[in-house]
């Protein structure tokens, strides 16, 4: 996030796109609702009429995967009507001409057909968001989990630069991150192209810096593989040994049949986790890890805030802190790592090597933590980025994006779109929340959420077991008939092994980030009692 959660309650306007905030980031949504009760304006752009839309002055039900067409058309109107921030564009950005040339073709009428909404509504959105400054844009995985995810993100940034909403309090581009420490894992360099602090592995000077710090030579210069490439490498033999730390890939990756084939192909698979799960079935060695609240450390949240995690109770049996396990493996390769606690790792290595984190030391994290960038120990941390329109690279660069449809779109055989996400009560594959007393009683099974119109057309009753099938698999699941879902869509989550949406999802990826298109694939639904479908079982 360029900005911070504490700005939500003070913001004057929000555009929330592709974010089911009340379920996926419940506490963040409470601050948006507080702002709305105090008079702030809210536009929700989402195929589903989810709970936050109840608080919005306008719900814009665009079709799944039409975000770029929508945002380009809004920018078309802003430019055509002169409703954008010319001063900000002139002084803080470059390549406005390129953006203007691209969005010129996205007239509201042209985009309306792609987005499934009226041209009037697109103009209306443009008028509303240009009338309040600043406006805060929030998005979640509805933007990123597409084959065009990178271009979706670029489009949100284009819009906010065009409106001059960058570098100001209560503005910015704010992706709400899905996991407690996904920001931190990125910051720590658990990525194939960067060292800790986003320092590129391809840069000779940076490699030398890390070689000196780690007392090694010959750090590799070429980028490594991303998860989908690793998984495919297991089948091709390019990857022979695979080490999975705290991920239940067998349930979370798209197309479970494909994923399980890949995991089963691993020549040597190490899984380090706190429970047996669907992924450990394929392991050759399983290493028992200490869990949350069983060792000290830090998490970094969506707003770049580094906060302390503390020990409440001991790990069971012989389970060990993860950092200790990695240290012990290094030792068997002749590397003696001296840091012997999370605090020593952070204070002596992480915050020394990552420039954004240099001012963050454990002794400064007792209260509310610190938000990076925090370059020195007297720095108070940074609530919002790009202050006064000063971007990291100098000027903000408009990167125009062309709309492309999802990799798989409905046809006669698979006439509906399956879109997926998270539900409030559970988390991911339920390895944690499924073992907490009470939560399974509140939500005990997966459902296929379908519209009343589709339910009527197929004579499906609320609560009836149905079959959902895609080109990759099929599942039996209870139908949840709800007007939250538009006609033509099936919506599901991945919390339960049975009826996990990932039996159906499409392993098509954004070509830059390799993010899977969890938000769109083609499916059909059938009554189980339908004799024709029974014959196919």
């Amino acid at each position: 996030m360029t900005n911070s959660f504490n700005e939500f309650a003070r913001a004057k306007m929000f555009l929330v796109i592709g974010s089911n905030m009340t379920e996926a980031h419940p506490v963040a949504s409470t601050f948006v609702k507080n702002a709305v009760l105090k008079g702030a304006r809210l536009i929700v752009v989402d195929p589903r009429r989810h709970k936050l839309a109840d608080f919005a002055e306008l719900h814009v039900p665009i079709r799944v995967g039409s975000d770029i067409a929508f945002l380009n058309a809004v920018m078309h109107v802003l430019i055509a009507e002169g409703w954008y921030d010319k001063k900000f564009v002139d002084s803080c950005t470059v390549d406005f001409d390129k953006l203007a040339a691209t969005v010129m073709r996205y007239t509201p009428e042209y985009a309306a057909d792609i987005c499934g909404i009226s041209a009037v509504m697109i103009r209306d959105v443009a008028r509303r968001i240009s009338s309040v400054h600043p406006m805060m844009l929030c998005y979640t995985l509805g933007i990123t989990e597409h084959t065009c995810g990178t271009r979706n993100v670029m489009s949100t940034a284009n819009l906010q630069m065009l409106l001059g909403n960058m570098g100001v309090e209560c503005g910015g581009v704010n992706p709400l991150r899905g996991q407690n420490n996904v920001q931190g894992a990125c910051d720590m360099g658990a990525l194939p192209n960067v060292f800790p602090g986003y320092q590129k592995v391809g840069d000779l000077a940076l490699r030398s810096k890390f070689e000196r710090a780690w007392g090694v030579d010959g750090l590799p210069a070429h980028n490594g593989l991303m998860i989908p490439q690793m998984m495919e490498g297991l089948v091709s033999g390019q990857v022979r040994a695979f080490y999975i730390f705290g991920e239940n890939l067998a349930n979370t990756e798209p197309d479970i049949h494909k994923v399980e084939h890949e995991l089963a192909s691993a020549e040597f698979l190490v899984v380090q986790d706190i429970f047996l799960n669907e992924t450990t079935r394929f392991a050759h060695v399983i290493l028992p890890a200490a869990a949350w609240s069983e060792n000290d450390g830090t998490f970094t949240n969506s707003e770049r805030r580094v906060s302390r995690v503390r020990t409440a109770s001991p790990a069971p049996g012989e389970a060990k802190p993860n950092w200790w396990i990695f240290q012990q493996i290094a030792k068997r390769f002749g590397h003696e790592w001296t840091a012997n606690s999370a605090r020593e790792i952070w204070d002596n290595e992480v915050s020394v090597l990552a420039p954004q984190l240099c001012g963050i030391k454990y002794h400064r994290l007792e209260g509310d933590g610190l938000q990076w960038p925090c370059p020195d120990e007297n720095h108070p941390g940074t609530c919002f980025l790009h202050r006064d329109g000063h971007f990291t690279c100098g000027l903000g660069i408009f990167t125009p994006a062309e709309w492309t449809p999802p990799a798989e779109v409905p046809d006669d055989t698979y006439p509906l779109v399956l879109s997926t996400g998270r539900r409030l009560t559970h988390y991911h594959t339920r390895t944690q929340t499924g073992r907490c007393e009470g939560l399974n009683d509140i939500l005990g099974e997966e459902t296929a959420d379908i519209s009343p119109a589709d339910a009527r057309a197929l004579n499906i009753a609320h609560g009836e077991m149905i079959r959902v099938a895609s080109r990759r698999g099929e599942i039996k699941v209870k139908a949840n008939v709800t007007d939250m879902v538009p006609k033509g869509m099936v919506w599901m989550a991945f919390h339960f092994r049975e009826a996990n949406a990932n039996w159906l999802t499409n392993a098509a990826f954004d070509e830059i980030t390799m993010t899977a298109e969890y938000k769109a694939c083609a499916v059909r639904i059938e009554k189980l009692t339908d004799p024709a479908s029974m014959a196919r079982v």
Partner: protein
Amino acid sequence: MTQQKMMINGHEVLFSPGQTILEAAEAAGIWIPTLCHLKGTTPTGACRICVVEVAGARTLPTACSTPAAPGMAVQTESPRVIEARRLILELMLSSGNHNCAALNGGDGDWTGFQLGVQDSDGSGELCPVWGDCKLQDLAFRYQVKVGRFQSHEGPYPQELANPLIVRDFSRCILCGRCVQACNEVQVNRAISFGYRGALSKIVAAGDRPLADSECVFCGECIQACPVGALVEKKARYRWRPWETTTVRTTCPYCGVGCQQLLHVQDGRIAKVTGVEGAEPNQGRLCVKGCFAYDFIYSEDRLRTPLIREGGDFREASWDEALDLVASRFKEIIAASGPDAVAGVSCARSINEDSYQMQKLFRSVFKTNNIDHCART
């Protein structure tokens, strides 16, 4: 804005226009008791425990809902105020199942009273919030004796129908903090006041069980409840404040990073509350932050390294398991080069774990084949 002057307990106090007497007093470090007041929400003046004496005023106004005014002279603990607060507390204690009435006046049979209350509670225990109850604290502070008024427990049975929150209407003092917490803090709009007079009750969805309402089990109402009317089912009769230490930590679920207070008793987390006033959540949690902590105590936890043997796993020592991992990785790297190994880190574990894992892959194995679920 220009500050204005008033007098509280004979001291000159500055306040900003728009502040209530309570806010002016708090800013000046003067304590006024509250029960129904919930910071950041609309004052209701429902409980009247914050009454104060204002020179020239006929009645005792509530400090939480009365604006401070220039020249106003306020007494927060005058005999008249204390007498009023005692009466309010006496009435509250007699209005329900409040078995902390230690200074029982009347017949003085505290033991009999306790046993009767525990019996009606279906438990041999003290009130589940004994020692963590604002009503109890105030009853002791103001030395309130009970017995003058007929005690009754109200017409509504406990709601035990959902797995997470116990609603004990016999302990509810109808202060409305839970209603404010639900409607103005978390804005889930699940509960409100229902019925009238002696039949008043906090209701969900037209007086249905919480599970059949808009309730999302965020736990905000429990945290707001000043008495024992709303308690965590998992912690009820297990958690006792005098046996507990608290540990501040960060929630392990979504990317908001809510600050939690873990209430640790006998080496286990007994319950979780939000850290009031803390960034980024200001004391708020969701159903997972409030109730999804006990997975760490599951019998299913992995306790020892496991090594595959045929179709099954056998237990192994750390040395054996780590030696095997190191030797297989060495063999494969020697035969096929460092890029024949790859690793996926964990976006739920601490920063230091991800740092160590990428360091292992880069500096020891010499590959950049390290990733995590960064983009999903």
